[in-house]
């Protein structure tokens, strides 16, 4: 039974990935991409990685998908019949078109298949490495949290996580940089929206906030944590933006800056303090580890949520 479900899921995932690449219309590819993300999330659950599943559904499929969808409008690929047809001919992988000579295409295809076969063989033969489960488990009581994934993220490999929070901030700056500078100061005003939409959004806001807070807190003992919570909170911002509330113009500039940087900044200051008191970078005093991790997670979630909102608001301008 397990095998059946897994194979079905795997085949579906692969099929959807193919559709993403080969669907004649780009808009269809983006919709398929959503489905692909959901399938993948199911696969994560089958593999026992609930944290990853939430992250995948929320960030890779949800957030990214929304950005993609929004880009479709930018590229005038939806909402206009002419463009659709134009794009249909222009953007799918042109297997039979003149732009590739068929020998080139054949060579590329063969190379890809060869690569695939070799990689399958290599993966097939991966010897049992044993992983680090045992060590992670043994050190869990000292980490301040009960959920091993959170322990790895916020304690054992806190350095990676810190850099990752930094990466999100950098991504935000990078997107500003790509957008040219003049728009930097003034985030966009969303157009006034439908009253029903606004009502719904208002209903969803507290729910999302609550669920985010729950995930954040629950990360201590089970699947959940800063990133998942952050995406939910970010979703609030995005929804509000879509509903015509221009979150970022209301908040003063200083405050915006603080919101975006506080996660990274606090994490860093904490690290420096730990070093100043004789410990290593990110070495929590065991007694306060749980509390500190929660604070770090909360602030990180706030920052990431702000960054995601800002990215969306900036991009949809």
């Amino acid at each position, binding site marked *: 039974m397990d095998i059946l479900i897994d194979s079905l899921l795997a085949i579906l995932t692969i099929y959807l990935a193919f559709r993403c690449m080969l669907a004649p219309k780009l808009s269809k590819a983006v919709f398929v991409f959503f489905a692909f993300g959901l399938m993948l999330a199911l696969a994560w659950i089958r593999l026992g990685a609930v944290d990853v599943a939430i992250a995948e559904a929320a960030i890779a499929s949800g957030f990214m998908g929304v950005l993609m969808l929004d880009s479709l409008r930018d590229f005038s690929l939806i909402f206009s019949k002419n463009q659709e047809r134009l794009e249909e001919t222009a953007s799918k992988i042109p297997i039979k078109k003149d732009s590739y000579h068929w020998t080139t295409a054949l060579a590329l295809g063969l190379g890809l298949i060869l690569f695939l076969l*070799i*990689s399958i*063989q*290599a*993966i097939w*033969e*991966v*010897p*049992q*490495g*044993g*992983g*680090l489960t045992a*060590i*992670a488990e043994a*050190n869990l009581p000292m980490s301040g949290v009960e959920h091993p994934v959170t322990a790895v993220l916020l*304690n*054992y*490999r*806190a*350095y*990676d996580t810190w*850099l*990752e929070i*930094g*990466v999100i*901030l*950098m*991504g935000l*700056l*990078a997107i*500003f*940089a*790509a*957008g*040219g*500078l003049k728009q*930097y100061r003034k985030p966009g005003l969303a157009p006034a929206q439908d009253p029903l939409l606004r009502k719904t959004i208002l209903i969803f806001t507290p729910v999302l906030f609550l669920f985010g807070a729950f995930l954040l807190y629950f990360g201590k003992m089970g699947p959940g944590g800063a990133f998942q919570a952050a995406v939910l909170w970010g979703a609030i911002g995005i929804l509000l933006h879509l509903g015509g509330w221009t979150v970022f113009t209301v908040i003063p500039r*200083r405050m915006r*800056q603080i919101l*975006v*940087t506080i996660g*990274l*900044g606090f994490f*860093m200051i904490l*690290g*420096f303090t730990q*070093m100043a008191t004789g*410990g*290593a*970078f*990110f*070495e*929590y005093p065991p007694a306060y580890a749980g509390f500190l991790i929660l604070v770090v997670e909360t602030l990180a979630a706030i920052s990431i949520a702000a960054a995601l909102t800002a990215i969306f608001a900036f991009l949809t301008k």
Partner: protein
Amino acid sequence: MKEFPTSALPALLVGLPMLLATMSLFFRVKGRALLGVLGSFLVGSLAFFAFIEVAKYGTIIHILGGWEPPLGILLRIDPLAAVFIGLTAIIGIFISLYSWWYFRARIASIGRFPLFWPLWFFLWAGLNGLFLSNDLFNLYVTIEVITICAVALAVLSGEAKALKAGLRYLLAAIIGSMAYLFGVALIYGSTGTLDLNLLGEVLKPGNTKTFALIVITLGLLIKKAAFPFHFWLPPAHSAALAPVSALLSALVVKGAFYMMLRLWTEVFEVSLTFAAGQLIGITGAAAVLWGSWQALLQTNFKLLVAHSSVAQMGYLLMMFPLLIMAPGQDADSAEWLAPAWTAGIFQVMAHAFAKASLFLSAGIVVMALGHDRIESLRDLVAWMPMTAMAIGIAGVSLIGLPPSGGFLAKWMLLKGVFLSGQWWWAPAILAGSLLTAGYVFMLLRLAFAPARVKDPFRPVPKILQVCALLLALGSFLIVIPAENLIQFLEGSKSFGSGIESIMKGGGYGNE
């Protein structure tokens, strides 16, 4: 790893630039620039201090969070890392100074870019993190930090050309990092550890490892723009703003090279064969010839310099075939390893200085002319003697004429080539030199030629020219402490080590 002294230095080397970057977000444009310049001196002096400490105590480590590998992550500065960090610091300081004045010059085509400073410090943090890292996955994160910042800096000008080049660069870099991460996954799956030192001990040959090696190497080759994958580099480097181009080609591409060097010599020794080294060498030689030839054909200064980067990075790859012993050779008695390593390190340093100087000079030229067509360099010598001199000196170092750092690198490379009996690399090295001479003197020839228009150059702040000139001189000055530097480097584990291409454990099949 307990035998090494621990210190807060490694963490500070990453933390300080990160802190500065975050702080700089809170300042207005002018304060940001001031903070940037002061901060660069701060980070630079920290790097200098780290260098001294390493010279005193040898390798220094920092166990992050107090969790020892394999569970946690370890940062370590060995002499090799210290040299790279020091190099980054020196060039970083000069580029910071240059940028300060560059962005102050209120020329319409340049303007001021408030995002430059935070991004540059994030980049610096990423570079330092990369050099310090001792963990496969952490290397991935740092290289992504570098990629995102580098691309963001590259598109700073906001022109369509730069954006397009930036997107191409970003996509190439993402493919590279994904390929790298694929290899990391396989290695983690088969060994259960990510720490480089532990991996070096437990890794056994087998199909999986060979495949992991292949994808990791391919990923890194894409990131460092090795020959067939160099397509993204020239447009990205030439379309960026001058200080950014300098950063990209002087430091960023070196990151991937550093990773490759570390991984090949410290982790993958068991999976490498003589043929693998030869293959890498061939791509290097091809890059040297192709890049130099393309540079010779360019009509734009920055494109020329960017193509020259492709070629010069090729020289770095030619060091790898020398590191791998042919069957039957013994790594302990191989006398060409030290020259090969010296060649690699000095090529990195000389190229970093020379290329930074060339791009900064290109920025000056663009500032003075409004464009960078080579034909317009006429009479540069009379109008901007310092810039002309910087171009000349940096160019001479690229060619590898004595007594420049490039000369030392090429000398050592040739020596290694002859000592190891792999003489077939020599023609490529020399032909590359000649082609390099071709394009460098093409520039100089025009610089000496009489101008066709009256008053061809607008005045440019002197200090910009001084920065470029000093960097160019740097590529010569590194030769003076060469012997001490090599002695210092010998303190690191990998320096001077070779790879014996015996497939330990019987070649095919796992275990």
